[in-house]
């Protein structure tokens, strides 16, 4: 079976697993479940799997997507249940289906987060309402300064007990802005501690990505 997509969640202790380690882990999950992933041809064959939008270490997600291909035929509806017992703690298979579109069509992400040890909600709201918002980041050719303001569709901040709650909708691919980059933009006004969770993914026109 080709061009399959798995939606999965990565939370709890699994948020510390890096992207490369996750790829390896997923291959082993399939192998433990007795399902053979398709391999590329060639001198150094590798499993045909790709995770659409690599997640930063420390960020949780309820909407990760992995494209893959399987040897043999399976009832895709049953796949999450079959894979479940073979996952490490914190990774949950949610849904498997034939990929209805290219991974590149994933454009927006809705996230929530918690910020501690920095400024209050009003400050963050004011900061991210302005334009441009310039961030230096390391690119292939030296340090580049980017304006991330156009990639922030919405950024709401609310004071909660012990910190600030963030609700964000960010452009995820071309251009990419991550919550980590937003925190970096705050410079010394940034929080001492923050954590984010991806909640939902959308296409360019804000229809749900599947």
């Amino acid at each position, binding site marked *: 079976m080709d061009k399959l997509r798995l939606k999965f969640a990565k939370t*709890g*202790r*699994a948020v*510390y*697993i*890096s992207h*490369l*380690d*996750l790829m*390896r*882990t997923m*291959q*082993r*999950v*399939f*192998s*433990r479940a*007795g399902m*053979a992933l398709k*391999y590329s041809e060639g001198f150094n*064959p590798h499993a045909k799997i790709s995770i659409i939008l690599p997640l930063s*270490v*420390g960020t949780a997600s309820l909407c990760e997507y992995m494209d893959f291909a399987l040897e043999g035929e399976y009832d895709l509806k049953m796949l999450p249940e079959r894979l479940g017992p*073979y*996952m*490490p*703690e*914190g990774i949950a298979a949610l849904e498997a289906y034939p990929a209805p579109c290219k991974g590149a069509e994933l454009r927006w992400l809705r996230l929530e987060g918690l910020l*501690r040890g920095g400024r209050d909600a009003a400050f963050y709201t004011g900061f991210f309402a302005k334009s441009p918002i310039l961030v230096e980041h390391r690119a292939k050719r030296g340090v580049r300064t980017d304006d991330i303001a156009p990639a922030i569709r919405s950024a709401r901040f609310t004071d909660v007990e012990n910190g600030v709650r963030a609700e964000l909708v960010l452009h995820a691919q071309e251009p990419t802005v991550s919550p980590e980059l937003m925190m970096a933009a705050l410079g010394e006004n940034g929080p*001492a*501690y923050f*954590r984010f969770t991806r909640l939902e993914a959308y296409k360019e026109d804000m229809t749900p990505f599947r």
Partner: protein
Amino acid sequence: MNEKIDALLRQVQRPARYVGGEYNQIVKDKADVDVRFAFCFPDTYEIGMSNLGMKILYGTVNEMPGVWCERVFAPWGDMAQAMRREDIPLWALESGDALDAFDIIAFSLGYEMAYTTVLDMLDMGHIPLRAKDRPGLKHLVVAGGGCICNIEPMAEYFDLCFLGEGEDVDREVIELYRQAKREGWDKPRFLRAAAQIEGVYVPGLYAVDYHADGTVAAITPTDGAPAKVRKRIVEDFDSAYFPTKPVVPSTEIVHDRVSLEVFRGCIRGCRFCQAGHTNRPVRSRKPETLLRLGKETLENTGYQELNLSSLSTSDYRGLSELCDGLLDYCRPRGISLSLPSLRADNFSMDIMQRVQQVRKSGLTFAPEAGTQRLRDVINKNVTEEDLLNSCRIAFEGGWNNVKLYFMLGLPTETDEDVLGIAELAKKVFWTWKQHAANKARGVRITVSTSEFIPKPHTPFQWEEQISRTEYLRRVDLLTGALARTKSVTYNWHDAEMSLVEAALARGDRRMGPVIERVWRSGGRLESWSEYFDLRRWLEAFPACGLDIDFYATRARPVEELQPWEHMDCAVSRRHLERERARAYEGALTPDCRAGCSGCGAASLLKEGVCRG
């Protein structure tokens, strides 16, 4: 994960190694647990999780109802620093509970350079370092592993140690501990009783006296402890516990694969080799058992690689049959098979060719010495002809990457032996020129040398270690001899660490404070060159009134009582003395199958007969 720890994890490299939650980890309900056992590995997660002994004991201890064994590793420098700064104690991966929540804190010691890390982990877990400062039964600190055959330098820190293989004796001690806890014994009573279990060494029950010159005068057992602690083995290795459901790390480790232990012990009697002498007698698993265990473990882990492990896999009688069986299973599933520690002989090369049909990784041989004379002295039964013949087969088969390992400073070594290494490397190169399947690809021959370290319980336990200056002179000699051979790369390990390793390996109890001093001055994770600093040791020895050369470089008279002579690893002192004499005669001793040399290890078997 609480937020304080979560904040730390975001600041450090590779946080996944600190959080547990991996597939196959064992979590128990604390309400059903009466003994909590912390299995501590005094090195990083990546090293510790690669250790087969750890997987075995984790599995077998967790099979005991009411006992929960969890894993603890030493954090890398950035994490250790952050934890100390934030005053977060060292925790176990499964529960996240700090070390002081555990009843038994057990260390696996396979390498002397880990000693300072043991102290660091205890301290990071808020456990008093010395046995005498832990008056209660709680926080019993124990140790097992290869180093126990001379654990004297660490004697004051451990309450008890396990000599030999741990599968059975660990469980017996845990049962006794449970009884002691239930019946409210005090710690001395528990230790006295534990010392009666075969394979248990309670350092506190032995008094050691010294002569004025610093050598050991007497080792006296007290409170009914045995005069000699006899090592334990698993006699029926075929049915011995094997971890077919090991924890599968979610982050890459050093040996990220299934490791199938085909046999224990070694039939070769290489005179420098400690493992070859302390793990006797040889006990094997049947090929059909290994096939079943291998398949089961592959299925339960999802690993794509399987490695056959032992001290000398070529010597496994069923190797051919086993490899065929495994290949039948592995090939169609894209699982690769790896065979380390092969000997340079025809049989091994044949197996190699069958196993590595697709990817031809490098081949490694360990002739250990450059001339036949010296190879005879160390009883390394490999001839130049064997080696070159193996290389020829390899080059014909398309391999073009050969690594050769040697030691410098072996007993009786002369400059001629050192130069012999270069000669041998050149002959390997000529063999390639004559027989290479494809010369266009070139060849890589790597020669590596390390310094010989005399180890307890070997025929060379009385030998001197050459000084670092002398080692470097021999390195220079070899470098010069290889200078004009373009296809040969020469790597040498610095001898700084070897000096400390040698001192610790043959050390006595007076070295405890030296280890503490090195740790207090920052020594930890010292098997990592980035964390090792010889200066700390060179400062600590004299500060504690000791001389590092007394331990490391000094040749011992055979009559001298060695600090480890109350450890009985079943190979007799008489055998070691005989082998030492034969070394000086350059006489070979046949392997155990060609002829029993009466080493004494057979006495560990019920029938008293070793089948090799």
